């Protein structure tokens, strides 16, 4: 079974973001970028499936600017066999990415597609579900456990009230939650080897997909700052403040 894994280049999760002075967007100049953490989990799961002999080939794909090839090289260093870069400098939103991935699915015919459940920049949590709808394949979102059994996959999902397990026919789309696995770090020899692995570059036009959406970003603002309050010296003072000052008890 071939596994397709989608990755996204985003701001490093440790970086504190700044809004541009003209409020047009978040300022990403000279900011450290990295693979989206949920995508790292997706790559790890795909590589583990290969190590278990369930997957025969792992193909990493990304949609983004030229620099996003760094994230594909990371995926290759972590164990993916080859990569596809769909290059665009436009802001590609979930629907356009899902349409492009659907074309890749049509071409590659993977047995499973694994994606992160959301990217930590736009926080949309949509692409996997949209891809499932467009390809007509079943989806197992927010996965904390994935078990392939013959022509089915059992996915345990993190839902609001607890955990839900569903069974899907293969091929299927899986999106990862945080506790699916702990991604490994790439070792130096693997990073060197990754430079020689195949990486195809395509454009959205090659797939006949238009990237711009009908949603426009009008403004980006910082949220209302919360001011730190006071330190209290004792439990008694805390209870007194909550009763008489904040009036929440």
């Amino acid at each position: 079974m071939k596994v397709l894994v989608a990755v996204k280049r985003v701001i490093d999760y440790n970086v504190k973001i700044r809004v541009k002075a003209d409020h047009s967007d978040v300022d990403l100049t000279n900011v450290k970028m990295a693979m989206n953490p949920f995508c790292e989990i997706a790559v790890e799961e795909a590589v583990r499936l290969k190590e278990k002999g369930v997957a025969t080939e792992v193909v990493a794909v990304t949609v983004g600017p030229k620099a996003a090839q760094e994230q594909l090289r990371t995926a290759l260093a972590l164990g993916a066999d080859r990569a596809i870069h769909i290059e665009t400098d436009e802001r590609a939103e979930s629907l356009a990415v899902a349409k492009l991935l659907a074309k890749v699915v049509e071409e590659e015919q993977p047995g499973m597609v694994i994606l992160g459940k959301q990217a930590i920049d736009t926080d949309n949590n949509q692409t996997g579900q949209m891809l499932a709808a467009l390809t007509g394949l079943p989806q197992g979102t927010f996965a904390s456990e994935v078990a392939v059994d013959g022509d089915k996959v059992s996915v345990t999902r993190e839902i609001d009230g607890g955990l839900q397990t569903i069974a899907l026919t293969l091929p299927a789309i899986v999106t990862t939650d945080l506790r699916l696995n702990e991604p490994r770090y790439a070792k130096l020899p693997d990073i060197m080897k990754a430079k020689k692995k195949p990486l195809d570059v395509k454009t959205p036009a090659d797939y006949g997909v238009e990237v711009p959406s009908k949603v426009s970003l009008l403004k980006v603002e910082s949220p209302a700052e919360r001011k730190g309050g006071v330190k209290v010296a004792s439990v008694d003072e805390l209870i007194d403040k909550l009763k008489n000052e904040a009036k929440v008890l």
Partner: protein
Amino acid sequence: MSILVLADLHEGQLAGATAHVVAAAQAIGGDIDVLVAGEGVQAAAEAAAKLDGVSKVRVADNAVYAHQLAEPMGALLVELADGYTHVLASASTTGKNVLPRLAALKDVSQLSDVLAVDSADTFKRPIYAGNAIATVKSDDTLKVITVRTTGFDAVGTSGSATVEAVDVVVDNSQSSFVKEELAQSDRPELGGAKVVISGGRGMGNGENFKLLDGIADKLGAAIGASRAAVDAGFVPNDMQVGQTGKIVAPDLYIAVGISGAIQHLAGMKDSKVIVAINKDDEAPIFQVADYGLVGDLFEILPELESKL
């Protein structure tokens, strides 16, 4: 304008989130219908009919919609969406699971986690874990939106909408329900509680979370946790408050042994009053707390419980 709200269910009953989504629909303006889909959901449909501002409740009661699996729910929404200008659901794990499918099949974008309505086509939503708020305008003919419930006060329950059955039945041979392990608790639901008390890595282990029980009982609070506490295996994932867990905005939020990672703050910083209890007086949580108490939580918690 004409709006369809997908009702959230919890164990077959109408979940509190739906009243907040209807409030968001009212902020957009226009006729509001609510879709209740599931198996054995008549009681939920009747509860939805009482929500203020709802004109019609549409009920799809069929085994294929049991557990609201994504594939049949998406197909049902595609069948029903014609004629509506907006389809809304709460940004719950169900809403997030289902609505993008509708959007993709209708070839429109989806707006996630909307927390304010500027107009019928312009909305505010958080990005970068709530560290920035984006104002976005959608020119799609159908607007598909998940709503962050903490952004909208629940509507009242003095309505009397008509209830009508929807006889659309779709096929689903691709996905099947196996089992669910839901947390059983007499406490209020984390998302809707007036008071939330959460523990972090500082709690040390899962056993020590019992120290929060007595205080939660006295305050009628829900109990939450930081991602660190969930990742460490102290408590189950459904208790997680944060960017990828529950978003809460109670009147009072008490953070115990939580350092205050950006990821956690994203889930609770809209709370009215925040109390932080932590032994490290440099912990970032104190920068957002209205009241901070520096000290050993194992001494402070029993004292707090006895004095409340």
